[in-house]
């Protein structure tokens, strides 16, 4: 569960927190695009290094490390499975370039997790909902999104309570075969679902009591305003995307080559 902690917003204040979620999202998307565009280990490493300033400025190092630890674990898995498949596919033979490629793919995964983790750690779901709203997503969906995020910790706590209650009546979760263990979770799921339905009715009642749906045009307590930092980040994102598109073009024309990292390391 601590992996997910690396994606949960922490109410605090920093340069990263104050950035407009829309711009931040554009930035994350640019990182995503570049990461997908290149299959070079060097580029992925550079992208990863690019995340450090954001983590530092957002002061979310501890939480970010949690998602990173999970990501590295999965990345090792990716690395091994790519190497194995290459090994069998190319006739029981692995070249240095295969290693480089596998490393790049694992690193790409880490980069994606890293950037999305920073985004979610530093963006309040309230503002995220607002950003969705102002991007033309119907309010009902934005509201559903924010409410879903809002109730994650509540439901998690409730699940734990139910588990404890069922345990204290002698239920054993970790006993038996795989199928049996899956079945063990039914006495937890049913009360959880029933409670969630009840809860949603109470929520609806409370929403109605607070004039939900009274006017076509809702107003908003928070506002999104682009500030200097946002323009700076937008400029950085656009520049990064342009440069990487240009370099990619040059590479495809055969005018330049992105050096491999492993041979450099091995030579020294």
């Amino acid at each position: 569960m601590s992996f997910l902690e690396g994606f949960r917003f922490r109410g605090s204040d920093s340069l990263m927190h104050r950035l407009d979620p829309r711009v931040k999202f554009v930035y994350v998307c640019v990182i995503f695009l570049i990461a997908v565009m290149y299959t070079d280990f060097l580029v992925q490493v550079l992208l990863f290094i690019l995340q450090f300033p954001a983590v530092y400025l957002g002061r979310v190092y501890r939480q970010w490390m949690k998602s990173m630890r999970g990501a590295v674990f999965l990345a090792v898995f990716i690395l091994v499975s790519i190497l194995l498949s290459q090994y069998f596919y190319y006739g029981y033979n692995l070249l240095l370039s295969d290693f480089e490629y596998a490393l790049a793919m694992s690193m790409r995964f880490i980069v994606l997790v890293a950037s999305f983790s920073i985004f979610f750690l530093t963006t309040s779901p309230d503002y995220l909902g607002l950003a969705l709203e102002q991007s033309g997503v119907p309010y009902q969906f934005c509201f559903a999104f924010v409410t879903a995020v809002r109730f994650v910790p509540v439901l998690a706590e409730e699940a734990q309570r139910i588990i404890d209650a069922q345990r204290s009546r002698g239920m054993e979760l970790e006993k038996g075969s795989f199928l049996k263990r899956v079945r063990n979770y039914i006495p937890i799921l049913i009360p959880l679902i029933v409670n969630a339905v009840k809860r949603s009715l109470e929520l609806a009642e409370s929403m109605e009591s607070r004039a939900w749906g009274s006017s076509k045009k809702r107003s908003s307590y928070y506002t999104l305003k682009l500030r200097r930092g946002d323009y700076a980040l937008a400029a950085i994102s656009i520049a990064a995307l342009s440069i990487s598109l240009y370099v990619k073009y040059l590479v495809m024309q055969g005018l330049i080559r992105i050096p491999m990292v492993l041979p450099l390391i091995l030579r020294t």
Partner: protein
Amino acid sequence: MPIIEARNLTYTYPGSSSPSLRDVSFKVERGEFVLLTGPSGCGKTTLCRCLNGLIPHFYGGTLSGELVVSGLKITEHPIHELALHVGLVFQNPENQIFALSVEKDVAFGLENIGMDREEMRRRVEWALEVTGIKDLRDRAPHELSGGQQQRVAIAGVLAMRPEILVLDEPTSFLDPLGAVRILEMIKKLNEEGLTIILIEHRLDLVSRYVDHVMIMNEGSIVLDGRPRELFQSSYPELLGVGLPKVTKLFNMLRNDGLNFKDVPLTPEEASRLVEEALHDRGR
């Protein structure tokens, strides 16, 4: 003109075979602090749901009789219109908070009615101030204690500036001290002119604040009047409504032939009455 007037209100939930409200008639005057109590399942929550039109607009079912709140017939006005006059606070604060920060949640109702931002800010500030949660404005709901959450829920309703505040067992999830603090806050709002309808089982806790008591049983209002008058009868006890302990004690003393000028609702009043009685006897 009373601010709430019910005439022969009878209501049956959809799919239910017997009515949950039977021929309910009562009046509440502007500025009153009303206590609504009665055994579990007697229809208190159901009655509250009528006050802002959740019944019949949200719940459906069959409603007969008439209920006028702030001059509006509930059957003729939608919930969101009634919500501007009647604020409803429910038992579980957790399920009344929608946003991820306190101030954003307090603003929820105002956003819904499309209020402009200037006025909205003023209202939110005011609501945070009167409920005493100014320091919590940026907190997320799951970081708050039950009492704090209930304050947020009350602030969210108050921000709409209703004339009537209806609270359905607002303190049942709180410790006694937290409960008293919330009740003191509600009393203060009442003194500033807000009409309060409070559902509560623990009469010991709330009797001191109220000036109008309605006791329900099996869907009907069986007792309606001033607390001191009602609490002298033994009928509430028979219904399972726990009278304040001092009131009960004085009722017992009276049955034994000891008479005091009045029945007390709080220990402080009781001690005063005893002192006066001793003083009179000394003379």
